[in-house]
């Protein structure tokens, strides 16, 4: 299995939209 680890997730808003079965990424999420 491939892994998308936390180094690559840093600073993005990562959105787990479980109801719509989708995952989102928004840049500069911690600001």
């Amino acid at each position, binding site marked *: 299995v491939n892994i998308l*680890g936390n180094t690559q997730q*840093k600073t993005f*808003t990562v959105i787990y939209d479980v109801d719509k079965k989708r995952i989102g990424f928004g840049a500069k999420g911690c600001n």
Partner: protein
Amino acid sequence: AAEGSEPKKWHVVSVSSLLPSTACTAAKAASKSSALRVVHRHGPCSPLHARGDAPSHAEILERDQDRVDSIRRRIAGASAIISDADRVADSKTVSLPARWGIPLDTTNYITTVGLGTPPRNLSVEIDTGSDLSWVQCKPCARCYEQQDPLYDPAQSSTHSAVPCGSRECQKVEAQRCAADDKCRYDITYADKSHTNGTVVRDALTLAVSHALPGFVFGCGHDNDMGPYDKIDGIFGLNRGKVSLPSQVAARYGGAGFSYCLPSSPSAEGYLAFGGAAPPPNAQFTEMVNGAEPSSYYLDLVGIKVAGRELEIPPAVFAAGGTIIDTGSVISRLPPRAYAALRSAFVRSMAAYRRAPALSLLDTCYNFTGHTRVRIPSAALVFAGGTTVSLNARGLLFVSTVSQTCLGFASTGDETT
């Protein structure tokens, strides 16, 4: 670097900006009142920081490999593990079966929650790769030293036990019923660290005025997390039936959540639940099903470096699927994909001196003497064309100025 509508092909960054500050930079007041503060476990923003004794980068990466190995074992051998567990249960032995491969050993981000009534603040790791939340708990037969006072059920007016035959107990994957009708759990991790205890429920305060009554979690009476962990427990965020998002959804409707992991140990991020509108710049990709039902899978199909898509057949990524995991530090790619990424990165970095490998990271550079460095942009391409451009901190793993590495590794196996 190209600006405007064209994606950047290069990042030009100050070398000093890649290194973490020794002081905590507090986040601005969150617009999301229900958001929890998220910090790196070993950074200056962490309540655990004052204790020191953080692991080295090499030790973090070695534990990261243990975690990824455990994820692979869980996927490859789940049926065999369950058979072993059942065999032990059938023999009616007192000791509970250890569940291997529940990968919790290197989660790196923590948040603070309130547990009980009145709420006691506890610092817990957040982990999208696990299900049952747990904290160290009185009475404690064997607990490691932690930051805060132990959670004491006797001091909470809203604590109650979860009976063996209850629906909540049946939802816990690693549970076993005991003769005293208490619902017990037992988890052993990839590095042989473990927690076991009873499944209980109590009020959980996520933020001011955001309480979750009857939160089901593990009350750990016998715990060993290895030499570095001083955390009070772990909170599971995966798709399992007793994970925190699942319990939030059961109470409030909608299992969605979002987080931002800070770019540096000295900065803060957040974890938020509920139906807040996604940021306008968010790009979505389909959440797909994989071999491990409680994990979050994405359909990764390509990688771009410096604006050019690498020549990697999509089937290379499809063989094992791709899990998104807050608890793994380094992303793992199939060997052919990693080789293509590494080659493109090395070509783009020809101006810089190479440095020795760092544990599983084999492509490292020495930036000593440089105030600014120019590194290629990289982007992950998902099914449907969603393209997520990584910033410099998402491409590099910075140990020191003299040893800064490409922050990806190979799975070592094309077929999994």
